[in-house]
């Protein structure tokens, strides 16, 4: 006889729900960037509208987690999963806000075609979504190694952001007429960069679930400093 079968089933369901929430955030991110680059403000509007679903689900998740805490006395790893999950859904909700932010930017840019085309924002978005995907997989598979690797890959996103920012500054300096749009695109890139940062937070929580250790995954700048 498996003891506490019902609790185990509910805990599994909670983890599945977290992954589902992550999938929604990933979709929102991908589509927000797609809307921005394709100048599709109907799609942007849908991303904005659907952010309320993400927000509601985050609260629903927390409520279920609190009910398990209050009624089931989880200990050890079960406790860590729930405690980490409460932080992770918070990160996911904020990532959803960043995706919404990108969609808002698209709407602010009106219906005009892009005057600074060719920026690798779509590649950056792909990278961000890939890392989020891997972070969620590391959570479902309890894979601390994967979480560590993914967390450190935030550097790749930072590099892309720096390149895009440099390119946009170049455009702003060379053509004053493009300053408005370049500024908007810079903000969009910044949103993506923040989403990746929060992916690193998720990875840190996954490591906590697996090992019980609360540690920050060092970013590139602190790794460089430690070599000095």
């Amino acid at each position, binding site marked *: *006889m*498996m*003891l*506490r*079968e*019902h*609790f185990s089933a*509910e805990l599994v*369901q*909670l983890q*599945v*729900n977290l992954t*589902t929430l992550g*999938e*929604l955030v990933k*979709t*929102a991110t991908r*589509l927000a960037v*797609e809307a921005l680059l394709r100048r*599709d403000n*109907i*799609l942007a509007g*849908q*991303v904005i509208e*659907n952010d309320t*679903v993400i927000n509601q*689900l985050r609260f*629903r998740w927390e*409520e*279920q987690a*609190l*009910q398990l805490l*209050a*009624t*089931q*006395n989880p200990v050890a790893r079960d406790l860590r999963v729930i405690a980490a999950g409460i932080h992770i859904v918070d990160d996911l909700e904020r990532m959803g806000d960043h995706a919404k932010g990108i969609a808002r930017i698209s709407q602010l840019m009106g219906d005009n075609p892009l005057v600074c085309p060719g920026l690798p924002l779509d590649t950056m978005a792909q990278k961000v979504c890939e890392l989020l995907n891997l972070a969620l997989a590391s959570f479902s598979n309890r894979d601390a190694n994967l979480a560590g690797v993914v967390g450190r890959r935030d550097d790749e996103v930072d590099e892309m952001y720096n390149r895009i920012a440099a390119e946009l500054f170049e455009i702003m300096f060379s053509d004053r007429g493009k300053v408005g749009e370049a500024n908007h695109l810079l903000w969009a890139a910044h949103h993506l960069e923040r989403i990746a940062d929060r992916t690193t937070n998720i990875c840190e929580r996954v490591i906590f679930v697996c090992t019980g250790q609360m540690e920050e995954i060092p970013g590139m700048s602190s790794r460089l400093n430690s070599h000095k």
Partner: protein
Amino acid sequence: MKNSLVEGPGYLNQVKAVQSWERTEVLPVLTGNHPKFEIEKINFYYGALQVLRDINLTIPTGYITSIIGPSGTGKSTFLRLLNRMSDLTPGARVEGSIRLEGKDIFTEINPVDLRYRVGMVFQMPNPFPKSIYDNVAYGPRMHGLRDKKELETLVEGSLREAFLWDEVKDNLHLSALSLSGGQQQRLCIARSLAVAPEVLLLDEPCSALDPIATFKIEQLLAELAGRYTLVIVTHNMQQAARISHYTGVFMLVKDQAGELVEFGPTNEVFTNPKSPTTEAFLTGRIG
């Protein structure tokens, strides 16, 4: 737009998954929500001493309802009323009504039938000093079942339902008293199930058991929910929290008579109780 957030097939699948969240409720999905017991304005006295005051409560069919509260608030008295165990207590007097499936248990159902439909399991495992087999077969025999084959099927079925079969199937004719405490308690549950009751009343069924035996009983009760209506009195708040779907809280409010200060879905009672008295009790500030 083909790839829109609303129309994309991938997104739709996600939304479907999200909708399934609603099914992760702790409450099992049961058809209808009709009451098993309707308890109205129950006042109970031992002589001049009032021990229960104005208890109004509806116990839903097929769920586990737990009754918690400090000692001396009338929880066990209340439970014993549900199959009229207090009838023979000298000086006991009850006012108000308790209906089982719409029929008053004091005036419309005779006590033998009532106890046939409403079984009881006590704090201390109390198997008869007979074999394991005879313990389970006792009730059905009393009700006139003589056919050996039928009895065997019923005994096996009841022991399986109580998660005890695998542990005792080779020793059915050993004395029930040779079993461990946890096994004895599951045997008592099997004995109750053998007469196919609608309701099982459990008065502190785990308080004499170790944690593993306790988890086994809890798991068993979770399996029985749905098919049976279970009402459990427990001092162990966490046990009520873990296994029950609904929780009632008994407290002393003005004097020595227990009152029901809160009743609701267990999740709500334990995360956001409505009554400040419940909150104080659950958080260990009174009791």
